[in-house]
């Protein structure tokens, strides 16, 4: 076993002025249209997400096309910018299908032959936010974990099978399905709603990222990619999703820490602000260090994905193994240090806990990423 190869170039772990400007725009929009009270109220409605908010975010600010090159109808930015959007979405737990559509589905399409009209067309539609797309795999699928398809395709492109726990599937108009075709696994495009496509809504732990089981019964699909190309497209989509999910987790942790500091500075017990008790201060300071570290890990993953570095799989594994538990701990500390108010439905802390916990399972739990790391870093199992 050999030691891991160091990255060829040092990563840029800071934010550029353009990235900060993008952050300001997204943050202002979310503060205006998706504050915790609005998110809470929305959860009671039947809609899976707020379409007006999505339009403003995806089309208005143009975030949906960040990963898509300009000549294909996108903004020609990179994973670094998309990561900033996800940080802000994490900070507001907005129910927006950004990760699933603008990151994972877009990356899967970019991995297909973009010179083909039936790839370029849907890609442009996803890039300007008009269409929502999802890669039809369980949300828990880790990079390298797509495995044997659960869906079968016959020679006429009729798809049959069931995919469980697909995030944002109920709202999606384009399903990218990993299916076993006559010549091996391939990526198929299925339009929804359509005959033979049924979504069964699941009651999710995280209400802000709706889940559905997808039942395909002779649904019409067209082949977008086959063989190694299909495998690589799916793998890249999962890797990018996992890497950028770390930025969402960072955003969640940031909000939880800031809110806990604010609350404990104002709340008085025993004649003192509770935030002046060292037992609490040390917990918040330790959390601050974890959040600062999570930022470095998440930025490193985004930078490696953006630059196409061969270090990206390792950077993503490190970021997921580190950031997922930090977001959960931040949300758990947030509730504990808020006391009783933290247990109420009206206080938004629970939204962050539910998102953080669901995110920990999404795109590979930390243990999966550590196992990947054991390979990548040359630290083989006993």
């Amino acid at each position, binding site marked *: 076993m050999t030691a*891991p190869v160091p990255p060829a170039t040092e990563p840029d*772990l*800071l934010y550029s002025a353009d990235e900060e400007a993008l952050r300001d725009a997204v943050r202002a929009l979310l503060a205006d249209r998706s504050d915790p009270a609005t998110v809470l109220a929305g959860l009671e409605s039947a809609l899976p997400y707020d379409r007006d908010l999505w339009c403003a975010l995806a089309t208005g600010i143009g975030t949906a096309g960040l990963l898509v090159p300009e000549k294909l109808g996108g903004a020609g930015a990179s994973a670094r910018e998309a990561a900033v959007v996800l940080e802000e979405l994490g900070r507001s737990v907005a129910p927006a299908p950004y990760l699933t559509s603008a990151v994972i589905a877009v990356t899967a399409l970019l991995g297909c032959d973009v010179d083909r009209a039936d790839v370029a067309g849907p890609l442009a539609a996803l890039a300007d936010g008009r269409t929502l797309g999802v890669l039809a795999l369980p949300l828990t699928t880790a990079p390298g974990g797509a495995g044997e398809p659960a869906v079968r395709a016959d020679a006429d492109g009729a798809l049959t099978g069931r995919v469980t726990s697909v995030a944002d599937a109920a709202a999606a108009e384009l399903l990218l399905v990993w299916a076993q075709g006559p010549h091996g696994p391939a990526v198929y495009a299925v339009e929804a709603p359509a005959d033979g496509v049924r979504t069964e809504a699941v009651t999710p732990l995280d209400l802000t990222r709706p889940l559905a089981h997808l039942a395909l019964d002779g649904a019409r699909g067209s082949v977008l990619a086959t063989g190694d190309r299909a495998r690589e497209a799916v793998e890249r989509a999962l890797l990018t999703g996992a890497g950028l999910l770390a930025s969402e987790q960072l955003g969640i942790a940031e909000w939880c820490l800031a809110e806990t500091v604010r609350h404990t500075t104002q709340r008085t017990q025993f004649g003192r602000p509770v935030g*002046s008790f060292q037992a609490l201060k040390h917990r918040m300071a330790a959390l601050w260090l974890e959040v600062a570290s999570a930022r470095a890990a998440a930025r490193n993953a985004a930078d490696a994905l953006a630059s196409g570095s061969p270090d990206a799989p390792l950077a993503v594994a490190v970021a997921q193994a580190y950031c997922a538990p930090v977001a959960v701990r931040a949300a758990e500390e947030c509730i504990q240090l808020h006391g009783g108010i933290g247990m109420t439905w009206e206080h938004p802390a629970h939204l962050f806990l539910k998102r953080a916990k669901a995110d920990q399972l999404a795109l590979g739990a930390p243990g999966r990423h*550590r196992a990947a790391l054991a390979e990548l*870093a040359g*630290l083989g199992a006993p």
Partner: protein
Amino acid sequence: MTDAAELRRRTADLLAAHPPTRLPPPPQNEGPAGPPLWSATERLDFLRARFDAGLAWVHFPEGLGGLGAPRALQAVVDAELEDAGAPGNDPGRIGIGLGMAAPTILRFGTDEQKKRFLRPLWTGEEVWCQLFSEPGAGSDLAALATRAVREEGGEDWVVDGQKVWTSSAHLARWAILIARTDPDVPKHRGMTYFICDMTDPGVEVRPLRQITGEAEFNEVFLTGVRIPDAHRLGEVGEGWKVAQTTLMNERVAIGGTRIPREGGMIGVAATAWRERPELRTHDLHQRLLNLWVDAEVARLTGERLRQQLSPTLNSVRAGGAPMGQPGPEGSGMKLAFARLAQEISGWEVEFLAEDGLTYDDWTLRRPDGVDFTGRQAGYRYLRAKGNSIEGGTSEVLLNIVAERVLGLPPEPRTDKDVAWKDLPR
């Protein structure tokens, strides 16, 4: 503006004018060829020339070992010199000078002080130590009792007191020292900062044996030590302010240096794992992977901090923090490294099984510095216990993060407005 290309050119000029000469390699039969050996004078000549060329710490001003360039560009120079096989200046031995004395002198020193002290400090010709802690003043450093009294009608201060835990005092030519100059005002306001000559007859250094068996630190007794006023750093009574600069720099000294992936202790542990498959267990595997992730993330966090600390020449000119003075964020890095060093070294002793039961050497050595990678696992385990104490305990650093970074309310205090002489002791 000095950019990377310019620095490469200057480095090439230095190497051309002072080609580093290697001693003849050791004869074949004397073991594997180690790193190149340098004769002492040649090494020193090279280091002096490097300082004079402004390539010692490029972010320092011209004439003081630097070129006023962005701090990040030091890496360019270091890489070129390393490729050329040029000798370095042994940071392990002169860490207190480099990490703490130099930035403090640069910020608060007079022109004469900077000219006199920085060059031999950087080349290692003069080693520095830090006379801060006292038996009655550790975490509460501002409680210190060592007195400095201005000699009547003279230019000197006369210092009496006792310091403790002083690393490298036995090697040091100079010390940074804080002493009380006014006992009648509250403790933070009555201190002054000095440069102390360790060869003064009033300075007595006694080894203090530590947990590892060696004596890296010392007790230092100061009896009638005479310090000329020209060796005062900063204003009389402003010693706490000056000390803050030292302490902030002390805390980033570890996080501020660039380390490669698997640099430091995690590399030692990972190598042990690769080389001893017969000792592996599933439990140790899981814990090692966790530590590996934590170490990689700490490395990246340090790298991010370093990138933030590299202001451009313009921001220095525009009156920004001089050469990116570290903020309290550095405390965070020190916390992370202390925890990691302790957990990894503990893991390693456990992994080594029977070998973990042995120790390399208990003799009372007087080491030149800390040697984390050169010695055995047991040494690393024991020495790492100091990482959460030296340079501010982890508890105190958590307080600093909570109050200065997060802005949480301070602990109620009873000692802030009381004259030092009236404090209970």
